[in-house]
């Protein structure tokens, strides 16, 4: 502590170490958040369902997505990344997950939503397995923190069935 530079260095080092500890504590505090997200997805319309020239099935859907993800937000949340995936099994793949829509929720005010949309990304199968297929629509989310650990979870909604024939 005998010189200006020595004291300045000691102060800054200690201050930054304490800052790191505060950020770790903020991340730990996220574990005490009780989560109660809800969501509901309806297939409003199947716009078309075809077999592509290369042999793969493709379907275009209009979806009604509504969800309430407000409980996911804490003081340490930067944003929530959410996406909707269609999940089903085929003889070739035990599990297929096709992302149909995603979005970024920047704050708690935007976390309760309900809207119609066609699928943002194409729903293409690896093969020709979609006719009459039962599939789940799963809403996944990633809670991205300001500092620390990211939490990810999902809600599985089942009971959807594709058309029996191409349209």
């Amino acid at each position, binding site marked *: *502590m005998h010189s200006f530079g020595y*004291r300045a260095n000691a*102060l800054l080092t*200690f201050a930054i170490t304490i800052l790191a500890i505060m950020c770790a*504590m*903020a991340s730990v*505090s996220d574990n005490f958040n009780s989560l109660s997200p809800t969501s509901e997805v309806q297939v409003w319309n199947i716009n078309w369902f075809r077999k592509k020239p290369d042999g793969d099935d493709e379907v275009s859907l209009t979806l009604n997505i509504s969800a309430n993800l407000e409980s996911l937000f804490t*003081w*340490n949340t930067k944003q929530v990344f959410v996406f909707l995936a269609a999940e089903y099994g085929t003889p070739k793949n035990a599990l297929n997950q096709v992302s149909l829509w995603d979005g970024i929720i920047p704050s708690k005010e935007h976390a309760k939503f309900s809207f119609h949309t066609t699928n943002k990304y194409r729903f293409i199968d690896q093969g020709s397995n979609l006719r009459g297929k039962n599939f789940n629509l799963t809403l996944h989310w990633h809670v991205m923190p*300001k500092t620390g650990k990211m939490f990810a979870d999902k809600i599985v909604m089942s009971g959807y069935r594709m058309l029996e024939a191409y349209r």
Partner: protein
Amino acid sequence: MDWQGQKLAEHLMQLLLVCFAVVAFITGYMLGSFQMMMLIYAAGVVLTSLLTVPNWPFFNRQALKWLDPSEAEKHPKPQPAISGPKKKTAKK
């Protein structure tokens, strides 16, 4: 700074930073505002650096005790050997 002043500066710096960190964290958590925590802590770091880093007079209250000049004369500085055999004499 004198010795006591250095000790005071170090302890004051550590205490102030920890206190500001605790206050900042609790305030931020209660308000649900990460930004508030950062602002309070940043203000605390600036305040602490203004208080403990510069050489304020109150850090220099107990002056260092230097040796008396007469005591120093009793123990003259050893002269370097100019010529002759190199003989190391133990001189204080």
